[in-house]
Structure formats: structure tokens, C-alpha cells
């Protein structure tokens, strides 16, 4: 089965539970975290979270599920051209 690594960028409120919630949804929906980076934005005090996930599933389904997390303000997938495909 072809595994696709896809990068997601998330803007979130600086809530104590938001990172755990994101990771729980990623695991439950069948994706594996390959890389994770989180920074607190000095401007708006929010969080910027970049996460790479690996799965044979389309990333759109995950995006929709992550989009339901109340503390997430914005979410986007990085361009397909930037993504790596692994067998």
C-alpha cells in the first residue's frame, strides 16, 4: 500500500489541551506522525503547529476531522509539490 507523507500547518489557540487533541485525532483516524514542530507566536499568542503525517488515506479526511477541534483556528495542507511520497 502506498504511504503518502503529507504536511499540515495549523494555527491554534494556546490552549493546554490542543496539542493532545490534535495528536489523538491523527492517531485515531489512522495517520502516523512523522514530524512535529510547535511554536508560540509572539504576535497573537497563538500556536503554530507543523505536523507531517503518513498514511495510505487521503489527507482531506483528516483535515476535516482536525477542523472540528474547537481550539483550531486555521488549518492547511502544504502544496502537493512539496510532499514526499514513500513506498
Amino acid at each position, binding site marked *: 500500500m502506498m504511504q503518502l507523507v503529507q504536511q499540515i500547518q495549523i494555527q491554534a489557540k494556546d490552549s*493546554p*489541551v490542543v496539542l*493532545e487533541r490534535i495528536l489523538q485525532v491523527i492517531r485515531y483516524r489512522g495517520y502516523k506522525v512523522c514530524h512535529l514542530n510547535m511554536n508560540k507566536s509572539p504576535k497573537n499568542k497563538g500556536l503554530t503547529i507543523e505536523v507531517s503525517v503518513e498514511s495510505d488515506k487521503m489527507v482531506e479526511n483528516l483535515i*476535516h476531522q482536525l*477542523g*472540528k477541534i474547537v481550539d483550531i483556528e486555521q488549518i492547511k495542507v502544504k502544496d502537493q509539490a512539496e510532499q514526499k511520497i514513500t513506498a
Partner: protein
Amino acid sequence: MTGAELVLNLLQRHGVSEVFGYPGGAIMPLYDAIYDSPIKHYLCRHEQGAAFAAVGFARASRKVGVCLATSGPGATNLITGLADAMSDSVPVVAITGQVARGSLGSDAFQEVDIIGLSFAVTKHCIQISEASEIPQAINDAFVIAQSGRMGPVLIDIPKDIQIEQTDIDLVSSPEKAPLNPVACSQVTEAKKLLVEAKKPILYVGGGVGMAGAVDELRAFVANTNIPCVETLKGLGTVPAEDEHYLGMLGMHGTKAANLAVQQCDLLIAVGARFDDRVTGKLAEFAVNAKVIHMDIDKAEVNKRRQVDVALLGNLKANLNVLSMPLDVDLWQQHCRFMRSDYAWQYNHPGDNIFAPALLKTISDSMPADSVVTTDVGQHQMWAAQHMAFDRPENFLSSGGQGAMGFGLPSAIGAQVSRPNDTVIAVSGDGSFMMNVQELGTLKRYNIPVKIVLVDNARLGMVRQWQQLFFQERYSETDLSDNPDFVMLAKAFDIKAVTISKKEQVQSAVEEMLAHEGPYLLHVQIDALDNVWPLVPPETANEAMLEST
């Protein structure tokens, strides 16, 4: 005022007049405030009972259900009820006590990380860290629970915050849940599919009732003439006597409903999610159909079935936008004939009670606008098949989770929310024992729920599967050592009667319905009776088993 008093004041401002719960150490300040509060508290006998009662309250009334529990085991006992509310999109606010802030993270007595535990079973969870956060947290909880796809929210409040004095001003009004948006870009494409379709079917899920769009759905059916099928949670949306209605679809659906879906060329899913119990083998579900999916939750679109057009947003508005007369008379006639040809048969040999006929008798005898709750198992499917409901709020069953123990406490919640309506809990002997302690709640408040306990002295649905798919190896499904249920009810001062013969049914049902207080009708049936039809797992819905 204290933090605890502030919580209760805010609940009142959100229209809450009844809550369900169980006290304990870390939530004692809140219970101390309840002592003087106009909010009526119903003491359930287990926190799971309180959570299911909140679910029943919410589903029967379309309001928010509220349940309370202490920290640690009190909080963990809520989890099954919250999981049910999450799966079935029920607006519930759960408030848990927590150890004092100074003890958090120290493995204190009755400390558990309920926030960590609740991620998978709540739409949102909040731990209060200052009393000043309480108004925003309560407000957010009510807004989130009721907006978009509804669901449960948990608020965890450390004990010292409940005691803390606050001077918070409550002048601002509670926020309202925002109206769901209306789809527009896909309407033209959806209308094109509707006009082109020769054999359309409307597949109605629980989302229609949750959106308050029952009238719009009924008007859509009448205007378009499209035959319709319903999910377990959608039952009651279209009246059972409507000529367009073919029954429930899926694993235990009617033959007419399943065949019509398999034959259709356009499937319009409204507030439904292509659950595996509905679709059977997904790759063979309605294979010739194009699909229009109308829902509030974007994440449900293309999750299990790729659709041709998705209309996201407010169902009330979107159903009206799509409604138009269609030329589908021949198809409608074909479906009507199937409904007639495959109608339920109630002929049953012998003197023993046939559960489908029993439930039909109750359905025909109960007052208009009665609420029926079920537990989970064979009796649940028989109730779904053979009882008729006036509206979706009148049939409460644990759909997504299939949680045994749901029936009695959810009936308590339903009866509290609708004190003037008859509430009937249809249970099985396995499920009933899961929350049997709630007989104590019935007795304490004299809540007039009528319990119909369908007793085959087995875990019937599991036994049926063992018979069909596990070479009759009946592992741990014999319950012939059940207690004496009549004696058990009488121990709680609840009137109870046992019947076992067909000739007793009508008079027993009439006596039960006429009784003013809580009542248990214990019905002994044949241990080998099965639920038919049954679509075996990973099988297409047209390949249903009809009997053995």
C-alpha cells in the same frame, strides 16, 4: 458568591432546570450549593445512569442535558454515556469535580486525568484554572454542545475553585449557538441529479430530527414523491403510515427498504453517515446510485462513500431549496408494492409470546406522542422494526455505540423532560441488569416509566450470532440464572407482573399503560426466537437472511 453558586446561576441562565448526578468528595461544594438552588437535582444510582439520563433528557426535549459527577471514579463512570452522546450527536454538558489545584498531578485521592480521558468521547473539554473563567467556560460549553454537529462537552472544576469567593458580574446575556450555514454552490448540480433520476431514494438519518427539520423533510417527501428509508436514529421522521415510507434500512432493515436502496439510481442521504450497520458491504451498497449528501458535518462527506454532490449546512433551508415535484410515479408504485408484498407477518405458532407482535400491540395501544427508549440487542431491533413513532424525539436508542444499559436511565431523563407524556423503556434481560440500580431512581422520585422487559434468559443477539456464525458454540450467553425480576422490582416498591402467553398480552399492556406510577412488565419469550431479516457481516444488503 462562591464558584459553585456561580456555576448553578449560569446553568439557570442557560435555561437548565433539571440536572442528573451523583455527589462525592471533589464536587461537594457544588452539591452544597444545589441544596439551596431552584435547579432540581435527580440523584441517579450510578454516574453512568446520570449520563444516560442526561442523554435521554436531551434527545426527548431537544434541550441540553446536564450531568454531574465527582472526580476519579465518578468522572470515569460518565465516559460510556459521553461516548454515546458523541456517537449520536447529543448535546450534553457534563460537569466533574476535580481535586484542588494544589494537588493536581500528584496522584491525589480520587484524582484522574479526566481531561485526558475525555478527548475521544467529547466534542470539547475544559478544565477551569481560575474562578473568573467559569462564565466563559459554561457559555462555551452550551454553545459548542448545540452548534454544528451537536455533541457532549465536559467541564472539570477543581474543588478549591468551587469554594472560592468571586465577584463576577453576570449582566451579559448567554451567547446563542450560531445558525448553521446554508449551502448554495452545489444546489444546481443536486437539482440536475434529482430531475434526471428515475429511481431516487431518500435515506433519512438522525441529523434531520437533530436539526429540527422534520417538517421540512416531510414536505420534501410529499412534494417530490420520493420513497424513503430511515436509519435507527431517523425513525419517526416520516410517519410509518406514509405511503412513501419503506421502513428502516440496514442489517435488520425491512426487505422493501434494503431492496429499494440497492435498486435506486439516486440516493439522497439527509443527516446520515453511511454507518456500517446501514451499508452492509460498502463496496456493494447502492452500487448503481449517484449520491447527494446533505449534512452539517463536512467530515462525514466522502468518509465512507464518495458522493456526487454534497450540500453542507442547515438541513431546514437546504431541503426547501431542493424541493420540487418529480416524475417518479412508476418507481414510487414499485416501492409501494414491495412494501406491501414484504409486510411484516405476525402469525406465530404456539402459545408463547412473539416479541414482534407484543411490541406492535404496545405501539398500537400507547397514547399519541409516547416516548420509547430501548436497550441494546434483539429487543432493540424488534422495537425499531415493529413500533411506530410520531417524531424522532419519541424513539431513543443507543445507535452509534450500541450501549447496553441505555434504556432505563434514558427513559428517566425523557420522563423528566416530558412529564405529561407516556415513556416506555423496552429492555432485554441482559441489558436491564447493566443499569438495574436505576430502579432506585424511579422509586425515589416516583417517575412513572413503564418498563417492558423482554426476557429470553439469554444475551439474545450474541446468541443469535453464535448460532449463525460461530457453529452454535454458545459461549457465555446463557442467562437462565437471572434473578426473579418481579421480586427485584417489588424490592424497589415498583409494581411488576410476569406474562408468558399470547392471550395475556393485550390485558397486561392495558394494565401497564393505565398504571399511574412506574411499572415493570416482565415478558418471558422463547430463548430461540431470532431477529429477521439479518444481513450477515460484510454482505450486500440484498443478501439478507430471512429465517432459519
